[in-house]
C-alpha cells in the first residue's frame, strides 16, 4: 500500500457516517417524511432551498395517526439535548398511514374563535391578552397555510422550565380551519396539530422528552379532572390542574398520564415508550434532537358503549434541532 493509498484508508476509517444494515425505523421514518415532502412539493409552487429564518434552518416533517395530524417546523440553534432512549415505533407497521397533511388551505382562516373550542376550553373562551400573541408567527408560514391557522386567535398555554436535558419551552395553541395546533418555542419553533373535533373531546396533551425524563403538559376540556402522571412502579402523582384546564408536570420517567373526562370516563395515555401499537405512530430523528412528544387518545380508542376506561395509544412528533 502506498502512502497515498494509506491516506484514503485512513480517511475511510474515520468515516463519520457508516451505513448501518439494515435500515432502522428512524431512518425509514425520515425517508418517508422526505419522500412525502418532495411529492407534496410538486403539487405546490417551487420551494427550493431550506427556509432560513433569522439564521435558523427550518425543517418540515409530518406525522399522522387517527384524528391527529402533526407538523413540525423547527428553527435550529439551541443546545440540543439527546433524544431519550425510548423505542421508536416503526412507522411502517400495518395500519401506519404515511404522514398525510390536510389539503393546503388556500388562505382561509377562521375569523373568530371556533364555537366548539370556545365551548370546550376555558382557555379559548377567555379574552385574549398581550401574552397570547405569538412572537414567532413568521416561522409558522407553512403551517398557517396548511392548517389555516389564524395567529390572531392564539392563546398562551404555559412555559416549561429547562429540565433533565430538555430546553425550556413556551407553548401556545392556535386555531385553524378544522384544526388546532400547539406551537412550541425554544430557540426555534415547532407545531403539532390535531383535528378540532378531536381536541374538543379529548383535549390537547403532550409530553416533552428530555435526556433523563419528560414533562407532560396539556389543555383539557372543561370538566376534566384528576390528572395523574403514572410512574413505572405503578404509583401515580396528582398533577395540579389550573382553572383554565392547563397543566404542566415534570415527571421523571413516567409511563403515562391519566385523567377523568367530564362524563367520568378515564383516559389513559401511555408514554411514547408504549407506542408500538397498530394505530400509533412515532417519528423520530437521530441524536442531536429534542423530542416533542405529542400524546393523544386516538379516535379508534373511543370506548364502546358502557365502557369506562380508554387506553389510548400515543402519537408523537419529534422535532430536530441542531447547533
Amino acid at each position, binding site marked *: 500500500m502506498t502512502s497515498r493509498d494509506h491516506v484514503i484508508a485512513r*480517511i475511510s476509517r474515520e468515516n463519520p457516517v457508516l451505513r448501518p444494515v439494515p435500515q432502522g425505523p428512524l431512518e425509514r421514518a425520515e425517508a418517508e417524511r422526505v419522500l412525502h415532502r418532495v411529492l407534496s412539493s410538486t403539487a405546490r409552487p417551487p420551494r427550493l432551498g431550506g427556509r432560513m429564518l433569522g439564521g435558523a*434552518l427550518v*425543517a418540515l416533517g409530518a406525522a399522522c395517526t387517527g384524528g391527529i395530524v402533526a407538523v413540525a417546523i423547527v428553527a*435550529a440553534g439551541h443546545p440540543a439535548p439527546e433524544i431519550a432512549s425510548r423505542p421508536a415505533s416503526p412507522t411502517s407497521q400495518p395500519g401506519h398511514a404515511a404522514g398525510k397533511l390536510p389539503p393546503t388551505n388556500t388562505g382561509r382562516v377562521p375569523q373568530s374563535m371556533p364555537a366548539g373550542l370556545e365551548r370546550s376550553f376555558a382557555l379559548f373562551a377567555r379574552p385574549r391578552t398581550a401574552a397570547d400573541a405569538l412572537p414567532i408567527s413568521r416561522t409558522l408560514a407553512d403551517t398557517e397555510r396548511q392548517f389555516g391557522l389564524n395567529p390572531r386567535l392564539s392563546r398562551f398555554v404555559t412555559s416549561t422550565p429547562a429540565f433533565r436535558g430538555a430546553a425550556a419551552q413556551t407553548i401556545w395553541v392556535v386555531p385553524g380551519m378544522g384544526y388546532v395546533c400547539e406551537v412550541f418555542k425554544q430557540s426555534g419553533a415547532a407545531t403539532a396539530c390535531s383535528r378540532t373535533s378531536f381536541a374538543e373531546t379529548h383535549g390537547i396533551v403532550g409530553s416533552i422528552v428530555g435526556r433523563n425524563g419528560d414533562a407532560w403538559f396539556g389543555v383539557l376540556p372543561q370538566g376534566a379532572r384528576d390528572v395523574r402522571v403514572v410512574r413505572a412502579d405503578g404509583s401515580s402523582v396528582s398533577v395540579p390542574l389550573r382553572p383554565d384546564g392547563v397543566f404542566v408536570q415534570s415527571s421523571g420517567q413516567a409511563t403515562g398520564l391519566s385523567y377523568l373526562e367530564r362524563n367520568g370516563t378515564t383516559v389513559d395515555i401511555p408514554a411514547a415508550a408504549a407506542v408500538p401499537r397498530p394505530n400509533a405512530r412515532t417519528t423520530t430523528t437521530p441524536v442531536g434532537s429534542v423530542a416533542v412528544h405529542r400524546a393523544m387518545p386516538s379516535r379508534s380508542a373511543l370506548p364502546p358503549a358502557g365502557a369506562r376506561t380508554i387506553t389510548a395509544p400515543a402519537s408523537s412528533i419529534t422535532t430536530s434541532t441542531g447547533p
Partner: protein
Amino acid sequence: MARRQSLVRMSIESDRRQAFEKLFATHYRAVRGYVLRRAPSSALEDVMSDVFLVAWRRLDSVADDPLPWLLGVARRVLANQHRAERRRGALTRRLQGRYRESGPDWEPPEMISGELAVALASLSVREREALLLVAWEGLEPGRAARAAGCSAATFRVRLHRARRRVADQLGEGTENRPHPRVTEETP
C-alpha cells in the same frame, strides 16, 4: 379524445412517479450519508428534500448512473446553503461593526480525529471534495468526477494533490512516497 389524452397523461405521470420512487429507494441512503458527512443532522431533511425535488423535476435528465448525479445535486444544495449562511453571517458582522471575522469554510465532522480534521481543513474545497468522494463515498474516480462536476483528468489532479497534501500533513513519510502516477486511480 380528451378522455383518452387524460388517460395517457395519467399513465405517464404514474410511470414517472414509479421511476422516481425507485430512484429514491435505491439511492436515498447513499445521498443521506453524503449529506450527513457534510452538514449537521438538523439540516438533513431539508437538504434531502431539495436534492430529490430537483431529481423529481429533472427526472428525464437523470443520468444512467444516477448516484454521481444526485451527489452533484447534493453538493450544490449544500454549497448554496453554505453561501447563504456566510452571507447572513457577513451581514450580521457588518451590522455589528466587525468586518474581518469570518468562519471556516469547512466544519469537520465531530467524529474525525483532530489531526485528520486539520489536514482536511488545509485543502481547498475542491481538493477536499475529491478526496472525500473517494474515501467516504467510496466512488471510483470516474464516477466521483461526475459527482464533482469536472472532467476525469481534472479530478485525478485534484485527488492527487489532495492526497499528497494530507499525507504531508499527517507525516505519512514523503520519502517513501512513490512518484505520483495517476494511472493507478483509473477505474
